[in-house]
């Protein structure tokens, strides 16, 4: 298991390198450039700026310089945000985004699995019957509708939680954004868990377990739950990708100083260094999430562990 994990972690590096290389060239091939959209700059100023950031050099040279700097941990300076080092921007924003993402993931997985199980335990009960329509509504509503709606009800009318904004060390500020981000996850995971658990409960080994007189609770927790979670875990990879894109909207709806805005800003302003910094961060996170899902899968099912290449 440990060897498998190490091999998979080592496998991340080349994937990341390919991702960075493709992004590096694609963003530069896109029409426009860092200073093209800015106020009318004289041709000379623009040339000076390009020279200063090394943008006048051949692409291959820029790429080599980028890799060299990256190897030393230097992500470069933003073009648009007053020469701020990209590493510094990420360092300030990432904790907020990561906290939001982790909270949403935990909330989504735990309550999704709990709801799915509850629906199965009481077949045809309130939760079971409400699950499908509620999930459909939650998945259909975009988070820029759910977010303000929650802020209106919980923040403005009930005054339980702040409407928006963020102060350091105040977890209360993250509650509404995390719920907004987690709702579609809860819906998907609850439905996955329900379907998968129903199937597993029909398996021959569940009948064998019941024939041993183990009792319903033990059969469910010890024999049924782990196999039933396999599809849920496979969904965690795509869920992580959803969290990255979802956080862009949620952070802006709730005015959180996370890193989501840099991705949008960097892309619009053609702020190459900022974009590359964000690609590195989100690429790594997505790959790690997928790796985590695979490792969990191996833990859930010994057959995967033994077949692993």
């Amino acid at each position: 298991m440990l060897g498998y994990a190490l091999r998979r972690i080592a496998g991340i590096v080349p994937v990341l390198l390919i991702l960075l290389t493709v992004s590096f060239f694609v963003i530069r091939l896109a029409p426009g450039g860092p200073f093209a959209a800015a106020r009318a700059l004289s041709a000379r100023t623009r040339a000076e700026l390009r020279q200063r950031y090394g943008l006048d050099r051949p692409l291959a040279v820029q790429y080599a310089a980028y890799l060299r700097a990256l190897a030393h941990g230097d992500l470069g300076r933003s073009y648009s945000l007053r020469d701020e080092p990209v590493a510094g921007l990420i360092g300030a924003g990432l904790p907020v985004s990561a906290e939001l993402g982790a909270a949403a993931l935990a909330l989504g997985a735990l309550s999704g699995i709990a709801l799915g199980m509850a629906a199965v335990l009481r077949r045809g009960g309130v939760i079971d019957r409400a699950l499908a329509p509620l999930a459909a509504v939650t998945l259909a509503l975009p988070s820029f509708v759910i977010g303000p709606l929650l802020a209106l009800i919980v923040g403005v009318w009930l005054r339980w939680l702040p409407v928006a904004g963020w102060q350091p060390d105040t977890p209360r500020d993250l509650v509404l954004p995390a719920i907004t981000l987690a709702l579609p996850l809860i819906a998907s995971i609850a439905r996955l868990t329900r379907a998968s658990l129903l199937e597993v409960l029909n398996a021959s080994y569940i009948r064998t377990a019941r024939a041993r007189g183990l009792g319903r609770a033990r059969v469910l927790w010890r024999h049924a739950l782990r196999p039933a979670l396999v599809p849920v875990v496979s969904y965690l990879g795509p869920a992580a990708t959803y969290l990255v894109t979802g956080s862009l909207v949620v952070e802006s709806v709730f005015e959180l100083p996370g890193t989501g805005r840099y991705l949008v800003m960097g892309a619009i302003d053609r702020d190459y260094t900022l974009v590359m910094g964000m690609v590195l961060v989100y690429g790594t996170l997505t790959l790690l999430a997928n790796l985590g899902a695979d490792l969990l899968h191996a833990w859930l099912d010994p057959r995967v562990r033994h077949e692993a290449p």
Partner: protein
Amino acid sequence: MSSIPTSAEAMGAAHEAPALLALHALSVHFAGVPVVDAVSLAVRAGECLGVVGESGAGKSLTFLAALGLAPSAAAVSGRARFGATELIGCTERALDALRGRHIGLVFQDPMGALTPHLRIGAQLTEPILRHTGCSRRAARARALELLEQVRLAAPARCLQQYPHELSGGMRQRVLLAIALSCDPQLLILDEPTTALDVTIQAQILALLAHIKRERRLGLVLVTHDFAALAGLADRVAVMRAGRVIETGSAAQVFHAPRERYTRELLQAAREPAVPGGAPAARGAGAPVLAVEDLTVRYRQRGARRRRGEIVALQAVTVAIAPGESLAVVGESGCGKSTLTRAALRLVGAAHGRIAWLGREVGAWPERRLRALRRDLQLIFQDPLSSLDPRLSVERLVGEPLEIHHGELDAQARATRVAAMLERVGLDPALATRRPHELSGGQCQRVGIARAMILAPRLLVCDEPLSALDVRAQRQIGALLEALRREQGMSVLWVSHDLGAVRRGCERVLVLYQGAMAELAPSEALFSRPLHPYTRALLAAVPVADPDVQPGRLAQVRLTDGEPPPAGGCAFRTRCPQATARCTEQRPPWIEAGAGRWVACHHFERGADGMLRG
């Protein structure tokens, strides 16, 4: 060791004991439709009740319902008493105190009956810990003892393994150990040997006979095959369509059955599945299929230490003449399916020469093979899963025509499909059905129609009967034999059961662990088997006769040999005659008479050219 009590003695003892489990007018309805209809049965301590019937007779459901394990959609009525406890309407908690503690159950399908993510040790100690409240250490010691009792070769290692690391026979032993773990008074076994090889089946049956003798517990053996009951059951109940149609002592039901249906089931269990007949007119010309030195190796994936090569097939040479029927026989994992797949160029990793209809096709690209494939058709073991569930019977049977006879229009195709359906005994009204709406036997007929519609020169039958009920087995076996004679085609039978192919095949090739053990004309092989492995296979075939079968079971060796290290004779660890030479040298493939070959050191040609055995 005490001798096996005869049925009469057991009956005498049983009559004195009160019933352990007594079912009275037990019925199970699904949506108002009775599936089990007023069944009354009783089992006493020390007695084995055999319940026989075809799939769908409600025999499994009867006992599941009695123990509260029927699907939630089932409406159960009637009474089921275990000792002083009424089981129907009893709470789940009260049932849990009986299940696994006083009543052990073993179900069909050993492959799926163990929880995949838990080690054998955990699953075996679970009921012990729950029901007896002993310490973990004591439970582990008990688990080891149980695995020894079911004769698993390496019990300590087995405790650490996951279910997928064990073979079907090993898993069935583990399930038996779990069922026996708390010393139950009653053991209910639902088709305990159906999914297993004949040799493993013989071992499990012999083990059950041993357990019954040693423990004096009540035993219920549910099966579709009378042969599995012979020598074990003291009383037999025959079920059909949810009702018990005949009950009696084993001697009475086996020797003087009252019901016609019982006689049919008995006859089916006594006759080989594939009927004999005059050999088809032997066509002249090149063999339809010939392989020479065919070897298949797989690279084993896995953790570094376990990586290596598996030789699935070792230098097999055999040819099938036009019109001939050849059987390839051996236990699961012996390479028989690999042989057919490699010979039909369906696996890539084959080395050696392959010839179809006299043409050397080993190196041909797939595109070029396609036209020839029309003449070499396959039918499969699992009739349902080998058919596309979305296609109707008509499309399924007509599809080969679409591929190989593009010149036919829809009308001509439909005519041929209808004629073919009739030929394989399928009602034309079934043409619009989909596979899941058919019975196992009907699905297999669709598979046969699909293969036969191209009028192939060779039909490869890969265990086409083993997923079917005994009667359906005989019907399908007879159909295939009739088709063979009519069409004059060659047939390659693949089977784990020597008994099934006894009469239907002209020659038999016995494979063991990927290598040829014996090749002989059918008659010669059955009357005088040369290889010890062939003899073991023959001895394992159950006989549906309570007077004969106990003696046969008593001779079964209860443990499997561990697979031997490479080199020498692969069978040596299971061979009663193994000598030092068998460990050192691989036995050569030598001719042992007219058309018969064997690979065994106990046969060799002397200086005078005569065979010494």
